[in-house]
């Protein structure tokens, strides 16, 4: 459970999204156990954790890809079930998946508007293309032509397309699963700007990242998953990167701190006294 007792709701009543006791297992592997998480409007929550900690699984539960085995999800105060990706989109939860969900045989424009094409009976290609250009310019995308198939794009270009797509439906919550992992310097900064803009506009953002600098730069709170369990929720403003790493690996004396101590890195070896949750 959350070890730092701070008010997550920022004082404005019910959170936008609240998870209680979510469990999910794949056969014998319990990927998520008793997970709690809250996200308010205008808040950026980072989820961190080691490889296989269950971050992507949590994302998939929220986006309707996997149904949870048990637990409740409350959206804007009322309990909901998210049985399908369509249900998630209708609620206003848009997701950028880690395993990018694009159709290789379709063009960039087709992918951006997939599932929400303008004028279904007589596709308005022109409108879709101009809006695509506008959107991708906002993200500083470097894609030469939007009429090429997605198969021909680089990894980062595909990531940009996936992010752009999540923004099209004007969602209430945007979930980004390692959005900057494949991106160049400018595009990473652009995505971080975008996350901040989303917060300013009152969207809730869930961002999964392995990059502590990114997390510290934009997140308000950071939730740590460890082996499928909650391992602490921290306010980013009053926690150090080392404390978060300690929670991720489960010990203050971990491989990361040992490494930085050995190299004599400044400020890395002070073992923090608090936040040794479980």
């Amino acid at each position, binding site marked *: 459970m959350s070890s730092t007792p701070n008010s997550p709701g920022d004082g404005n009543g019910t959170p936008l999204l609240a998870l209680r006791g979510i469990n999910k297992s794949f056969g014998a592997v319990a990927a998520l156990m008793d997970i709690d998480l809250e996200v308010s409007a205008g808040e950026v929550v980072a989820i961190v954790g080691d490889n296989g900690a269950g971050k992507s699984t949590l994302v998939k539960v929220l*986006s309707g*890809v996997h149904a949870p085995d048990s637990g409740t999800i409350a959206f804007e105060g009322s309990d909901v079930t998210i049985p*399908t*990706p*369509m249900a998630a*989109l209708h609620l206003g939860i848009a*997701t950028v*998946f880690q395993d990018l*969900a*694009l*159709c*290789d*045989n*379709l063009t960039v424009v*087709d992918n951006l508007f*997939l*599932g*929400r*094409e303008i004028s*279904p*009976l*007589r*596709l308005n290609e*022109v*409108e879709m*293309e*101009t809006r695509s*250009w506008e959107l991708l310019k906002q993200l500083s995308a*470097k*894609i*030469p*032509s*939007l*009429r090429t*198939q*997605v*198969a*021909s*794009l680089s990894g980062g270009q595909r990531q940009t397309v996936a992010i752009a*797509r999540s923004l099209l439906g004007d969602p209430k919550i945007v979930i980004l699963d390692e959005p900057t992992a494949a991106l160049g310097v400018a595009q990473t900064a652009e995505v971080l700007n975008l996350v901040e803009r989303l917060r300013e506009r009152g969207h809730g953002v869930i961002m999964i990242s392995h990059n502590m600098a990114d997390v510290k730069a934009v997140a308000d709170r950071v939730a740590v998953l460890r082996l499928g369990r909650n391992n602490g929720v921290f306010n980013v403003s009053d926690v150090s990167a080392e404390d978060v790493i300690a929670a991720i690996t489960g010990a203050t004396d971990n491989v990361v701190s040992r490494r930085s101590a050995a190299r004599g890195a400044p400020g890395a070896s002070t073992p923090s006294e608090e936040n040794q949750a479980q």
Partner: protein
Amino acid sequence: MNSKTAPTPQIRPLDLQDERLQDRTGLKGQLKAFVDRTRSGDLGVLPVVAGLVVIWAVLQTLNPIFLSSANLVNLAMESSAVGIIALGIVGVLLVAQIDLSVGSVSGLSAAVVAVTVVNLGWPVWLAVLATVALGAAIGWVYGQIFNRFGVPSFVITLAGLLGFLGLQLYVLGAKGSINLPFDSALVYFAQLAFVPPWLSYVLVVGAAGGLFATDYLHARARRTAGLSSMPLQSMIPRSALLLLVLGFVVWYLNQTRGVGWMFVFFIALILAMNYLLKRTKWGRSVYAVGGNAEAARRAGINVKAVYTSVLVTCSTLAAVGGLLAAARLAAANQGSGGGDVNLNAIAAAVIGGTSLFGGRGSAFSALLGIVVIQSISSGLTLLNLDSSFRFMVTGVVLLLAVMLDSVSRRSRTSHGRA
């Protein structure tokens, strides 16, 4: 944006601003784009058209009657029924599934229409409606089984192949053959209804004019939106070429009986299917599901509904094809929809360029493919060679088409195309 290059006379369109883009506008640019596409393995209709030219040349040298107007008129009529069935197969292949039962379903529909019209005395329109509805219902049942139980479509439809063949025999009863009256509207439509020459030319002009109008309106909309657009210099040759080709074909067919209404109906179905696939949200979903079903699902597409709709379309078109085949023969018998109908329909779709791997292909592949297959069939019949040769040759052509599909897919992957 990039004002580094000084001599840029006019503002470049919104979609051509990236400096890495090479110029592909104008006739020369389009030609270059075509070469690029072909070399990267996106062969389009090129192999079929080339194959067709070779086949026609060979058959014509073997028997000069082959390319005669009378024979081509016949070829067009013979192509229609199986071509319509192949059109349904195109949709199923686009979502990377298969329907092996189209032959049986078409045979069943032939039997049903014959029994209802001849034995039960139903009016033709009612019999046709009932048959088409039966086809749709069969597809719907396939869809339910596929979606609910996750049985692979080729197994479900293999069961359908056998089951509906049985039902066809049962419906036909002990006699096993029912003749349709020659004065029935169905038989007239499939055998004797030809477009009057003046109307056929009007249709040709209408088609070319229609192409020009859509090109023009599309280009105008793109220009107003600040996007690159097709220049008038390439619009006019496109429409003119269509006018010339269609005009010549129609003129040549008009030397004898002309263009059959049944063939016009087939073309109309292709155009409708092409519109649905290329210009509607449904069509976009079909391609998406064929390209990456999980991605389509995550984009909020009701993937199950797409599978069902495609299977329903396929069975419905199979029923329509079967009905027309019966009308053309003026009879329904135990052999209706049997023999090579099934494989010809599937082969036509693949030969025409629709990929077996899903997500690639177009409605026009049904037309191109069936013309290839019917040409072989008609040519070999003219040479007095029996079906043994026809089967072998068609088999080889199908194999070539499938090999080409696989090879070009590999080439596309290495050139960054799906």
